[in-house]
């Protein structure tokens, strides 16, 4: 594929063409240059029907959208508040924990800021946190939880890199907790006044637990099922979908049944968008493999990057740039097939690589020019992008330090992986 074509594709992407169309065009142009029968693009695309685990993605996404539609976000915040609100800086930690859980279950679709921000932002400012701090906190929490099962990007990475998703689910725990702890410490340091917290009340906690009785069994059921090995990931997804359907439409009846088609459509539009990108990237990846792009990439970088450490530094810089430009799904299907073979040459564990990759992408959610969290917050809270960027900066720095630790301490990711 010539440089002219590549440049043309970058231009149409900047003009706003759907990412899948540029990936499809690159595969078509690439194979055309090789005189290959172009129906190979459709044959590779059909790989979507030959990947059993894919089923997990629509089911988890649908369950997440359904949860976000009802009163679950509010109940989750009230429960976290009753449990953690009495600690100094408690409400900030409540936000972090609630956002992390919610993001893990809804994927990385930006739903968290919309669903939880509406409850958390007024609560934070009412409790005496500055508007700027609250804005930064919610913006950066919008993608926290990406590393916890059963988040969509973890599953997608496992599919693309051909790594055990169960292993990824285990590997994400340590780094995910590190990020929450680091941000909690920052929040605590920033708001030492104890006046910001409310006294702990057993009655309130009890009421919140009773209130959330239908949602509470879900995380232990799903996570317990997956981590114990009782459920395969796709089975856990089916159980989650059924559980949420029953709890929302039969037990709680807080969403009218008439809203179901709209929710299905909204969630499946997102899934369709991701899958079309994934299907066409199967074709573009197979072209790149046929051109031995990963080997060439390795031969090109190896004289400059003598050791694993140098490689990781360069990788991190590269990923931060990619994360700032591409959304996490496109970045995964495009970049992961290239870096996994190179990383293997440097003896980097692909599971560890996955966590580094996703952690770096998490930062991409809050860096300009295309950080989705920045736009979500700017829209949701009616603030300028510049203001949101500035408010998010300190949180971004804390998370960046976490990403450094995650990158250079593989044990942090791998200690739970058998």
């Amino acid at each position: 594929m010539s440089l002219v074509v590549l440049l043309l594709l970058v231009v149409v992407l900047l003009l706003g063409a759907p990412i899948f169309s540029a990936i499809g065009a690159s595969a078509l142009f690439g194979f055309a240059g090789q005189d290959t029968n172009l129906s190979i693009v459709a044959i590779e695309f059909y790989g979507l029907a030959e990947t059993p685990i894919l089923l997990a993605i629509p089911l988890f996404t649908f369950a997440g959208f359904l949860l976000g539609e009802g009163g679950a976000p509010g109940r989750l915040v009230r429960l976290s508040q009753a449990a953690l609100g009495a600690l100094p800086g408690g409400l900030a930690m409540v936000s972090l924990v609630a956002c992390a859980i919610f993001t893990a279950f809804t994927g990385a679709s930006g739903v968290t800021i919309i669903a939880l921000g509406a409850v958390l932002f007024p609560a934070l400012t009412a409790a005496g946190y500055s508007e700027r701090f609250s804005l930064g906190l919610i913006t950066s929490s919008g993608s926290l939880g990406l590393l916890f099962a059963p988040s969509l990007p973890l599953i997608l990475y496992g599919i693309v890199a051909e790594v055990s998703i169960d292993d990824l689910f285990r590997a994400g725990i340590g780094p995910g907790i590190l990020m929450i702890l680091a941000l909690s410490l920052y929040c605590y340091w920033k708001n030492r006044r104890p006046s910001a917290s409310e006294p702990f009340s057993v009655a309130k906690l009890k009421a919140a637990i009773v209130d959330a009785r239908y949602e509470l069994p879900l995380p232990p059921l799903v996570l317990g099922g997956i981590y114990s090995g009782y459920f395969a990931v796709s089975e856990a997804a089916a159980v989650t979908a059924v559980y949420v359907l029953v709890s929302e439409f039969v037990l709680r009846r807080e969403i009218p049944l008439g809203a179901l088609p709209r929710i299905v459509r909204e969630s499946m539009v997102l899934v369709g968008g991701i899958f079309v990108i994934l299907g066409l990237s199967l074709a573009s990846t197979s072209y790149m493999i046929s051109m031995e792009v990963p080997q060439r990439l390795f031969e090109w970088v190896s004289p400059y990057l003598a050791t694993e450490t140098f490689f990781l530094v360069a990788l991190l810089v590269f990923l931060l740039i990619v994360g700032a430009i591409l959304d996490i799904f496109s970045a995964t299907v495009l970049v992961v097939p290239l870096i996994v073979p190179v990383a293997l040459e440097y003896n980097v564990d692909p599971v560890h690589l996955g966590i580094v990759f996703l952690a770096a992408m998490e930062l991409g959610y809050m860096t300009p020019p295309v950080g989705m969290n920045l736009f979500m917050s700017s829209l949701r809270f009616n603030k300028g992008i510049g203001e949101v960027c500035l408010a998010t900066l300190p949180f971004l720095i804390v998370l960046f330090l976490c990403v450094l630790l995650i990158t250079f301490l593989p044990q942090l990711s791998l200690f739970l992986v058998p």
Partner: protein
Amino acid sequence: MEAHADQRHGPGQRIETTLLCLLLLGIVVVATLQIVLRNFFSYSLFWADELIRLAVLWLAMVGGVAASRDGRHISLGVVERYFPRSWHRPAAVTATLFAALVTAALAWQGYRFVADSFAFGDTVLDAWPAWVFQAIIPVGFAIMSYRFALQALALVRRRRE
């Protein structure tokens, strides 16, 4: 990219939504049935896993078509955010036309794939002809191409305010 407002409703949209609901709920039911049978009756439906995989392909294509109608495909959209207003329309027209052309090419290659599968008599689910299930690839991309072409046309026609 934003879809033209009058495309958002109509019979096509209802068909998409109905199909998406049937596919998704169908997947949920079959997958759940499979879990129940496997765990409590040590039995499994031999066709279930393959049927679900084909349904996921259909879900992807119908979801992709719906995303084209709703203007919700993932894109960078740098021009919309950082460039002056006068750039928006020409940029959107170019981007949408490009998408229309690529999806048309994909529909054509999809058709060739399905035609080959028909000629070879490929089967799925024991004895069903595979092309019936694979046909969603060319059909889906063709409808997406049609949607993008309509959107580009609407953008060109829209008078500058």
